[in-house]
Each structure stands twice: as structure tokens, then as C-alpha cells.
């Protein structure tokens, strides 16, 4: 395979907890992202799935340096973003854009659509007023809106249209990677399908690379080439979408897949119903973080954290059971 576009190694973010005693640093911390490594290749879509609190959104913000990592490296086109000086980082960031979850909250209500889409160009001082205006009009058409929309304000648009505006803004600077943080979760089904189609078309047209974060396994399967499953700050399984959906190795992935609601009323699905919900990340369980909820946990799982094991075809998973076989 070719050189990866983005290389993430041992990325960690520990948020220190506020200590109850003033001026004393607390030793407790939330390990939101705890040693995540993956590669993203040009033109592919890497899906990141997991339940709330698994650290997928924090991971997205670490990749584009919205949050400074505690440790680890993020290499984009061979250059480490972490510790890069401000000016150069600003330059590199042009190539890494983000689309956020909430289409209602992600647009400044006091700016027109034209101003919002042009903003990245204004920030990075690209072009003059006329060329910026031209680019905005061009992008409005690209995402399926009309030129006259540039003069309107966000509240005049529906959720799906707003997400199109967000996408247009992310495209303005011709990025290489777009990190999509739950871009369709807040949308109705029919609109969700419109936005997903748009994202797929844009990928083809502009040779985009996506990191696609979602909790919806069906959406991820449709969108992504490879999928990483996260649980409590760690990747527990990663592989091509076919491998993950047809031959999941980790018991958590299996449970996630079985939890997808029925596809039709005739469907007779075998369910793995997990106990409880995701434990508190301040005080994660010993050994394998999943062992308390795992239907096939062994003694060893309580003591020892499993390592990611390569099971072939670029498919990796961290479970002691894989060693036993």
C-alpha cells in the first residue's frame, strides 16, 4: 500500500479532574483517549464507531489539534502536527476540515450563509472579495443549494440544508481530509440519506478522504471502507467493513452489531443483550475494560489488558480469546 495520508500513533488525551482542594492538582483523570493508533489512506473513508463516552469525538478533535493531546503523534503527509509552530499548523489545518454533528448549533446565527462559507478564506487571507464571492456561489451549487441562498441567515434553513452549508464551508479550502463528527445523527431519515449521498459524491469528485464518526452502524457500513470500533478510549477492533460486519472478532463488536434494530418485521434476530452500560471512564474496570459486560469473559480478562492482535487481512482486535485459539 501507498504511504498513508494520516498516521496516528499512541494518541492519548487525559483530562485531569478538578481537584476538590483548591490549588492542588488532582491525580485523577478521565482517560478520554488512551493510546489510539491508526492510518488513513488517501481517498478512503475510515469509520469510527462506539457508544457515548468511548472517546470518538475527542479523538476527532485531537487529530486536527482542536484539543492538544497528552501524548502521541499525528503525522499528516509525513509531518507531525503535534508541537508544530502556530503559523505552520494554521497552514496545515487548511487541509484538515471538520463537519460537526449539530447543524443548528454549528452555524453562527448572526452571519449570512455567504459570510459563513467565505469565512475560511477570510481567515486564511485567500483571494479578494470578488473571488471569494465566486467561490461561495460555486460551492453552494456543489452542495445542492442556490446562489441566492448566500444572502440568507441560518435560521431560514432546515437541518439538512444547514448541514449542506457546513459541508460547503468545509470544502472551501480544498481540503484533503474531512473529519465528520456524527454529521447525520441529528437529521431525519430521508434527509440523512440526502446528506450521505452528497458526502459520497463529493468524495468521488474531489478525491476526499473522510474520517467518519458515528454511532449508527448502518450508516458506517454504508459509508466506510474501514472501520475502527472504540470502547472506553481504546480501539478494540479495526478492519475493512466487510471483515467487521461479516466476521467480527471482539465480543463488543458482536454485541454492537446484534443490537442494530431489525431491518424488517420478518427479521428474526438473535440478540446479545449486554449488561449495564459503558462504565465510568474515570475509573475504568481493570484488565480488559469490557470484561464486566462481556458475555464470554474469563478470569484472565480481569487481570490483564489484551493487546491488539492481527488476525489477517488487516483485521486487528484485542481479545484474549483470540490468543486461546
Amino acid at each position: 500500500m501507498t504511504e498513508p495520508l494520516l498516521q496516528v500513533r499512541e494518541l492519548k488525551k487525559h483530562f485531569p479532574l478538578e481537584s476538590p482542594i483548591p490549588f492542588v492538582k488532582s491525580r485523577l483523570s478521565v482517560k478520554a483517549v488512551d493510546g489510539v493508533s491508526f492510518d488513513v489512506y488517501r481517498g478512503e473513508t475510515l469509520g469510527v464507531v462506539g457508544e457515548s463516552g468511548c472517546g470518538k469525538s475527542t479523538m476527532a478533535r485531537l487529530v486536527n489539534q482542536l484539543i492538544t493531546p497528552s501524548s502521541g503523534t499525528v503525522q499528516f503527509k509525513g509531518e507531525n502536527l503535534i508541537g508544530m509552530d502556530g503559523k505552520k499548523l494554521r497552514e496545515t489545518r487548511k487541509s484538515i476540515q471538520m463537519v460537526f454533528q449539530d447543524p443548528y448549533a454549528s452555524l453562527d446565527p448572526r452571519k449570512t450563509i455567504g459570510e459563513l462559507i467565505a469565512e475560511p478564506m477570510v481567515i486564511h487571507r485567500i483571494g479578494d472579495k470578488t473571488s471569494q464571492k465566486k467561490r461561495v456561489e460555486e460551492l453552494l451549487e456543489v452542495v445542492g443549494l442556490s446562489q441566492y441562498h448566500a444572502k440568507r441567515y441560518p435560521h431560514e434553513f432546515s437541518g439538512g440544508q444547514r448541514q449542506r452549508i457546513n459541508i460547503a464551508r468545509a470544502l472551501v479550502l480544498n481540503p484533503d481530509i474531512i473529519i465528520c463528527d456524527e454529521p447525520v445523527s441529528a437529521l431525519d431519515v430521508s434527509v440523512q440519506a440526502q446528506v450521505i449521498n452528497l458526502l459520497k459524491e463529493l468524495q468521488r469528485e474531489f478525491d476526499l478522504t473522510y474520517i467518519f464518526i458515528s454511532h449508527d452502524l448502518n450508516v458506517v457500513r454504508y459509508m466506510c471502507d474501514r472501520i475502527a470500533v472504540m470502547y472506553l478510549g481504546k480501539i478494540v477492533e479495526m478492519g475493512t467493513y466487510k471483515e467487521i460486519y461479516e466476521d467480527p472478532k471482539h465480543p463488543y463488536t458482536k454485541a454492537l452489531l446484534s443490537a442494530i434494530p431489525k431491518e424488517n418485521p420478518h427479521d428474526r434476530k438473535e440478540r446479545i443483550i449486554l449488561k449495564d452500560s459503558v462504565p465510568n471512564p474515570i475509573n475504568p474496570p481493570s484488565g480488559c475494560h469490557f470484561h464486566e459486560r462481556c458475555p464470554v469473559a474469563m478470569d484472565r480478562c480481569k487481570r490483564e489488558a489484551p493487546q491488539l492482535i492481527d488476525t489477517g487481512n488487516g483485521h486487528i482486535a484485542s481479545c484474549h480469546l483470540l490468543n486461546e485459539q
Partner: protein
Amino acid sequence: MSTGQQGIVLEQTQVKTKNEHSLFRKLIRNRFAAFGLFVILLLILTAIFAPVIATYPPNKMNVTKSLLGIGVEGHILGTDNYGRDIFSRLVYGARISMLVGIGAVLFGAVVGTLLGVISGYFGGKWDSIIMRFMDGLSAFPFILLAITLMSVLGQGLVNVIIAIGVGNIPGFARVVRGQVLSVKHSEYIEVTRSLGAKHSRIIFHHVLPNSFAPLIVYATMSIAGAIISEASLSFLGLGVQPPTASWGSMLQDGKDFLVLNPHMATIPGLAILITVVGINLFGDGLRDALDPKMKA
């Protein structure tokens, strides 16, 4: 380029634009706010056109015609103990009230907003330092603070404005800080950060414009307070220098003639009352009109 061909026939959105026009209409529909607006406009016009409106020079004494009653000898509101025309003094007093009211609030708003933004946006150490300082400032009773400042700065209109303005700083700083804190965590601020914007751009293009509504309401209400403060200072003899007409000093002059000639004190008192009530009603109306939750 024809992406999004999928028959994305986007219907023209029919949602009405919430613009300034409808804000004004909402204000006018509220009877109290309309009254407040009327009072404010009247006051501003009076202040601007004082020389035209006043029937006599405000400081011209005429001992032979002192303490005239209302309407006597062409003095619409009578005269005071020096024979000065009360109506004309009232009209010129409006100038002082408006100047001090608006000036002091502007001063407080500019400094307070600056401190509030720094405090709310950057947080941490700056937040603690600024806000503790603000706490200290507001620990002084307002009038005491103004008196102290006046005795340090010396008398004069500009100093009155500064003295009252300083007292207004903590209020503005708090309002702005609170607003900035809530706006700061909006997703669109995070989006702008992810685009690589600098702090100054985020603050001036996104945080401040979205913190404005409560700021305007607070500023309007504060003008009423500043007018009262000015009157109090002048009443105590610390405000505008005599013989310049100010509602506070007119009140002071009138208090010795309460029994003999009650209108000398009641007229400026009424002027202050109506002004303050008017501004507060307008402020209330403005808040309701700006608050989207009160829309229904």
C-alpha cells in the same frame, strides 16, 4: 459541477426573516415599551434642542420675580428662589441628565465589556484576577464610590461621567462574562476554531455579536441608574457645578422651599421619576422583544 443531482429540489424557505423591522414592531405593540420609547425620544429631542425650547436663559437671575407660581407672568412652570425660569432649567437639565446617563453607561460598557470578554473567553488566571477586582469594586456602595472618585478627580461634567461610569463597570463585566461563557461553548465557536481562526477574530466576529442582546438591555436599564446617580451627586453638591442646571441641583435648591413653594422640588423630582420609569419600561420591552423564548 453538478453534484447533488439526486433531485434535490430545495423549496424556497418561507420562514420570515427576523429583522430589525419586526423588532421595532414588537416593541411598539407593547404599550409600556412604546411609552418608554416616547419618553426617551422626548428627552433626547429636548436635550438637543434645549436652546430652542427654553423660554428663558436657564441661569438668568431676576430677584424681583423669585418664587413665582406655575404659569405666572409667562413662566410656564414658575421661577425658583433666584427668579430663574424652572421650565428652562428643566430643559437644560435634561441635557446634563442625558449626557451623564449615556456617557457614564458608555464608559462603563466599554471598559466592562473588555474586562468581561477577557475574563469569560480566556478564563483561568485572568478570570480570577478580573472578577475578584470587580467584586471589590462592587463591594463599595455605589454613591460612596462616586463620592470618593469625585473628591479625587475634582468636580466637572467629565469627572461626573467617569465617576458614575466606574461604578457601572462591574455590572457590565459580569453580564458580558456570563454571556461569553455561554456563547464560548457553542458549536459554531468550535467550528470557527477548527477553521484556524485567531482569538481576536473569534471574539469580535462571533462571540461579541452573539452576546449583544442582553448587553443592550442591560445598558438601557443602566442609563436610568446613571441618571439617578447624577441627580444624587448634584443634590449632594458633588455633581455639576452651580449655576449649571441639573435636575439634582434643582432638587437641592427646592428642598428649602418645600412648604412655601413645593413645585420647585416636585417638578425636577417628577422629571427624574418619569425618565427613570420610562427608561425601565423601554428596557423591559426591549428584553421581551429580544428574548426568543418570549416570542409566543
